[in-house]
């Protein structure tokens, strides 16, 4: 019942919104940048759900089972730091280049070869991350059906269809409208469900006091506190979420797509407080459900041991909530994963269509041809998600490995924008860091223990050290935005 409500809701909503958006789309430019450009309200809702996917929900509640409520720093940092930096600075800076995709921005700064590298890396790495979102969506559908729908392949297939439909008909405009509806539904619905689960907890396990007593008696007195800075929280949550979002996500096409489509720089900045608030608040209900669910032995014992952390909030909700309300909760969960998955399909397809097929293979396409090309590229990108999603057993290492490809690109991008453009320094930095990423991922040195065993840490350090030193030593020209400032000053004089 609940799974049918959630899936039908998304099928009807995406098709209805897609149909309306399609009527407004007259050209490929409209499809990618929305007809007339996104105003600030549309932009903030469009953007806020893109970095709010399984990282805020499924992965986070799974981590909370081992690390406690401090995992909520994920949402606090994404909403409180990444979103404002993107909306106030990085988005508007990127718009000053006048380009349409991020690989084009890299091409403008560092030449065509870097543009092509960025295009290939963006699609490859975000396919991995999109597959992780697909798995999260599939897990929600599997949990919601109480195991009645087989995870492989059917839950994954349903997830892929829903993700593809999210952007297929109306592009960025369809995504912006859907995200606006889903952001509101997600916040209202998930907190309402949390409130109702609270009532069930009061009636059955002595409410929050019972939850607290469970962790106290287990010797985990800090488990329900947000300021328990254990090494696990610092090295697996706080530092990765800060570094990966502020570097790799900042140079990704899917994260930047709303800014390319914004009506003006002012529209990028205006909704920053609303965006930060929604993004930060979104993860709390899921973590609270997981922490409460783990204190009820009857629920924990009803799940396979290796699936407890992954399915406990869904099990608690299935037990505590009436079926239609459970459907609402799953709509909220799918809002997070589908929006990120849909944005990733759109971002990857934009890069594949514009920067590979159109730019390198068929530069003289008509507008109709470009639209057809875009649709074909979207289908290809969804199918690319399917391969790892159907065979990938673990998600976290894929996240780290994929995100790590973006870290050196961000370092050289910021240097190339604001300090110096040196192509040799850029290429050496990127190539050396990619070697380090492969080395650490597949042949981790025996002496690299603790946090240094994670590829993300050496990749970040080498990117910064090599990027900065090489750009100081090797010759080059002024950074792109410095050049633009100088030109504006000359024109003004």
């Amino acid at each position, binding site marked *: 019942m609940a799974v049918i409500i959630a899936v039908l809701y998304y099928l009807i909503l995406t098709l209805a919104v897609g149909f309306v958006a399609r009527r407004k789309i007259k050209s490929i430019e409209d499809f990618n940048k929305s007809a007339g450009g996104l105003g600030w309200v549309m932009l903030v809702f469009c953007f806020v759900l893109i970095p709010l996917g399984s990282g805020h929900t499924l992965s986070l509640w799974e981590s909370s089972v081992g690390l406690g409520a401090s995992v909520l720093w994920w949402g606090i940092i994404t909403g409180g730091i990444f979103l404002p930096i993107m909306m106030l600075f990085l988005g508007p800076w990127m718009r000053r280049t006048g380009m349409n995709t991020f690989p084009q921005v890299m091409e403008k700064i560092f030449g065509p070869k870097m543009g092509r590298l960025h295009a290939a890396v963006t699609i*490859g790495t975000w396919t991995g991350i999109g597959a992780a979102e697909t798995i999260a969506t599939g897990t929600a559908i599997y949990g919601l059906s109480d195991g009645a729908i087989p995870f492989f392949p059917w839950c994954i297939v349903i997830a892929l269809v829903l993700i593809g439909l999210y952007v297929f008909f109306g592009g960025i405009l369809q995504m912006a409208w859907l995200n606006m509806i889903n952001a509101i539904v997600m916040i209202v619905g998930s907190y309402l469900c949390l409130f109702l689960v609270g009532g069930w907890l009061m009636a059955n396990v002595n409410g929050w006091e019972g939850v607290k007593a469970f962790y106290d008696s287990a010797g985990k007195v800090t488990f329900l506190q947000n300021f328990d800075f254990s090494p696990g929280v610092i090295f697996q949550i706080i530092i990765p979420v800060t570094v990966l979002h502020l570097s790799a996500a900042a140079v990704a096409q899917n994260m930047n797509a709303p800014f390319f489509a914004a009506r003006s720089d002012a529209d990028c900045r205006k909704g920053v407080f609303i965006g930060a608030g929604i993004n930060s608040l979104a993860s709390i209900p899921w973590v609270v459900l997981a922490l409460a669910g783990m204190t009820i032995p009857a629920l924990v014992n009803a799940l396979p041991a290796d699936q407890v952390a992954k399915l406990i909030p869904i099990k608690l909700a299935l037990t505590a909530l009436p079926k239609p309300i459970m459907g609402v909760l799953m709509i909220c969960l799918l809002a997070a994963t589908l929006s990120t998955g849909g944005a990733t399909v759109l971002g990857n397809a934009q890069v594949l269509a514009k920067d590979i097929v159109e730019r390198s293979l068929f530069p003289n396409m008509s507008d109709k041809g470009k639209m057809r090309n875009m649709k074909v590229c979207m289908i290809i990108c969804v199918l*690319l998600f399917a391969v790892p999603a159907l065979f990938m057993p673990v998600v976290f290492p894929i996240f780290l490995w994929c995100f790590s490809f973006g870290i050196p690109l961000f370092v050289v991008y910021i240097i190339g924008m604001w300090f110096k453009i040196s192509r040799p320094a850029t290429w050496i930095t990127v190539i050396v860091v990619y070697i380090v990423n492969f080395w650490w991922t597949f042949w981790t040195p025996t002496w690299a223990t603790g946090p240094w065993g994670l590829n993300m840490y050496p990749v970040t350090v080498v990117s910064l050290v090599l990027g900065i030193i090489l750009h100081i030593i090797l010759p080059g020209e002024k950074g792109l935005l410095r050049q633009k400032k100088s030109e504006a000053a000359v024109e003004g004089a």
Partner: protein
Amino acid sequence: MQPLDIGCAIFLTAVMVVLAVIGYVGDAAQKRKEKKD
């Protein structure tokens, strides 16, 4: 950390390599065509 699934990594790497090769070869072909014209 759990080990990265090697099959998945190979697939994603192959996607990146194939797309980069298509991009570079396509660019080179465009340049040659422009020179001819």
